[in-house]
Each structure stands twice: as structure tokens, then as C-alpha cells.
């Protein structure tokens, strides 16, 4: 990848002195091998760092549940973990694609429907045979407020990690890329937050987790034109 200071100096020079052939000479002289998989590798590193940040924030501020092993053994938490893992994978793929030129979220973003379909199906199963009152109680679990507050706020640092990678990539749909970075940041945070959140019902997860992601996505979309411009 070209050095930023070289490019800055070049911009200064060519505006004053260089014609296109001279510019090409300078660019060729500075040429070095590049890694075509840089975006994927850098994104993976950013995701691991973001997960580390999320784990530290959850552990130090709100703490992890003590009954996780039992919940896993009983299968109560499988749909929730499945959703947050699937969401993170899909969000990561969308994010990596949005980091390249010419990609538009309105096409690639359809992939977000995959985890939503998964948790929607799980919610459908959970709702079968239950009365509306029971379903309403599970959805309106008081933990929804914490979900909407902690997941987006813990995602601020991860968002800027992902934004830093995008800044060195070449997104041309800045708002779309910012949205994708916000969704990925909140998804990765939810990997850690899911082990704090005491609400395991797929009905709860179907409503509030995607809403938390959406807050992160919209915030990312809002700041993207200023943060991601290259």
C-alpha cells in the first residue's frame, strides 16, 4: 500500500508541476507489491480488537451472567448465540464488500435478511402454542432498555476501528459503508453482550437486538461522510 506522506507530497507536486506522464513516472517509481486480501485481513484484525474491547466493557461495566454454562447446556441460549454469531458473520461480509469501490448497500444489504430470517424462524417456533399475553411479556422484557443503550454505546470504539480500516480502503458509497460499519460494530458487541443479557427468548432477541443494530447502523451512516472520506 502506498505511503500516505508520499501521496500527500505527490498531490502538492502535481498540482504545480506534473503532467500526467510525469505523474505516472512518479507513481511507478513508488510502486510496491500490495496484498489483494488486505481488506479481509485488516477487517478480521479490527473485528478481533473490537470483540476484545466489547468483552472488557461488558466485564467491567455490566458483568457477565453466572448461569451461562447451564443456559447453554439447557439449550435456552442457542438461538440468541446463533443469531449474534450469524449476524456478525453476515455483517462482516457486507462490510468487506462495501469497503471496495463501486459497491452499493442497497444490493449487498439484502444479506442482512439472513440472520433476521433465522431468528424470526426461531421466534415463530417459540411463539407457537403460546398466548398473545405470554408473547407480549417475553418481547416486553424490561431488559430491552439496556439492550438499546449498552449495545450501541459499547459499539462506539469498535465502530472507529472499522472506520479506520474503511478509511484505508476505497468505499464509494460512504453512507452505505458507514451503515455497514455500524451494523458490524453493534453485531460484534452483541457477541459479548449476549452473555450479559438475561433475556434469552428468541421473541425478545428478534425485536430488540436488530433494533440495537439499526441504531448503530444509522449512527454510522450519519457520521460516515465526515469520517470515511478519502
Amino acid at each position, binding site marked *: 500500500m502506498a505511503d500516505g506522506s508520499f501521496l500527500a507530497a505527490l498531490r502538492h507536486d502535481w498540482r504545480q508541476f506534473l503532467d500526467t506522464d510525469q505523474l505516472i513516472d512518479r507513481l511507478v517509481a513508488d510502486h510496491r507489491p500490495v496484498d489483494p486480501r488486505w481488506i479481509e485481513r485488516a477487517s478480521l484484525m479490527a473485528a478481533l480488537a473490537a470483540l476484545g474491547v466489547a468483552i472488557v466493557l461488558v466485564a467491567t461495566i455490566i458483568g457477565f451472567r453466572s448461569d451461562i454454562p447451564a443456559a447453554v447446556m439447557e439449550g435456552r441460549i442457542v438461538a440468541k448465540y446463533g443469531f449474534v454469531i450469524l449476524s456478525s458473520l453476515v455483517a462482516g461480509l457486507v462490510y468487506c464488500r462495501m469497503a471496495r*469501490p463501486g459497491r452499493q448497500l442497497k444490493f449487498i444489504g439484502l444479506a442482512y435478511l439472513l440472520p433476521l430470517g433465522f431468528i424470526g424462524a426461531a421466534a415463530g417456533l417459540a411463539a407457537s402454542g403460546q398466548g398473545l399475553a405470554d408473547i407480549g411479556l417475553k418481547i416486553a422484557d424490561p431488559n430491552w432498555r439496556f439492550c438499546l443503550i449498552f449495545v450501541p454505546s459499547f459499539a462506539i470504539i469498535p465502530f472507529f476501528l472499522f472506520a479506520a480500516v474503511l478509511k484505508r480502503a476505497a468505499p464509494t458509497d460512504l453512507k452505505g459503508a458507514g451503515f455497514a460499519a455500524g451494523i458490524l460494530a453493534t453485531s460484534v458487541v452483541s457477541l459479548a453482550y449476549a452473555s450479559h443479557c438475561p433475556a434469552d427468548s428468541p421473541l425478545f432477541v428478534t425485536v430488540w437486538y436488530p433494533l440495537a443494530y439499526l441504531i448503530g447502523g444509522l449512527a454510522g451512516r450519519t457520521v460516515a461522510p465526515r469520517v470515511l472520506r478519502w
Partner: protein
Amino acid sequence: MSTRDPELASIMAAAQAGDAKAYRRLLDGLSVHLKPHIRRLLAGMGSNGAAELDDILQETLIAVHGRLHTYDPTYPVTAWVNAIARYKVVDHFRAVGDNRRKIPIETVESLMSEPEAEQADAARDVQRLLATLPANLRRPIEEVKLRGLSIAEAAHAVGMSQAAVKVGIHRGMKRLIARFGIGAASMAGNNG
């Protein structure tokens, strides 16, 4: 995808691996490819582009240099560089404080079917002629004479009535012939 893409893709692969000769061929090829493309984008934004073309071409080449690692081998090289050029055109107008200009989606889509490099000079000349016309005369000519659409399709594309498209073509060609003589007349004959 341009028919030059398979060739450009192999040059790009060598350039990404660090081959300086391939990199020079890539930049030379892209600069030839980009000129008419950027001119078309500028025309689409209502600019004649004369003052901005070289600046944006060079900004795009610098961006290509700094973002070479973002090229995905499964994607056409021309689509990749066209997207960068489009971004740089929009960024250029944003930088000079002109946020009102938007590149229409039809223009963006047309970027995927770039004219071949061999046609670049002819395309440039046609664009130069057309750039002298107001949009209500230029657009019908572009859609019907250059893109080959029918009157009905062109009317739909430019948001005008069919009668207005016909009148626009007639008046536009008449004005070009009056202004540029035989050159415009032959353009009408060749493309019509």
C-alpha cells in the same frame, strides 16, 4: 464489462504482485480509458470539464495508486476504476462547494459499458460537440443518436414527451450543423 478487461485483469494481477512494468502499462491504459469516461461524468454534471478533466484524471490515478489493494480480482478492472473516478468527480465538486450536482444513475450504469480505447477520440469529439448544447437538446441526441434508444425509450429516459424528444433532436442537430458544419452533419449521418 469492457472487452479489454481480461487483458487489464492480468496486467492488474502482475501490478499487484509488484511488477513495475505491468504497473506502468496499467496506469497508461487506465489513463487512456479514464479520459473519455471522466469527461462524460463531467458532462453529466453540467460541466464542460475542460478545466477539471486533467485534475480529476490525476487525482484518480493517485487514488488508484493508493488503493491498488482494494481491487478484487473477481471484479472488472474498468468497473473498479470507473467507480473510483466517479467518486473523485463527486469529491471534486464537493471540495469546491458545489453539492447541488448529482451524477444521474443512468450515467453510473453506463460506466459499466465504457467505449473501447480505440473509440476514445471519436467519443471525445462527439462529447465536445454535444457539450455546447443545452441539456434539453443534448440529452435527446445522446439517448437516440449515441445510445441507440428509440424515441419512446429516450422520452422515458430523459423525462420528456416523445414530441419534445423529436423536436430536441431536430433543433439540436440543426444547431450543431449551423455551428460546426459538415462535422456535425456527418456525425448525424454516422450515428443516426
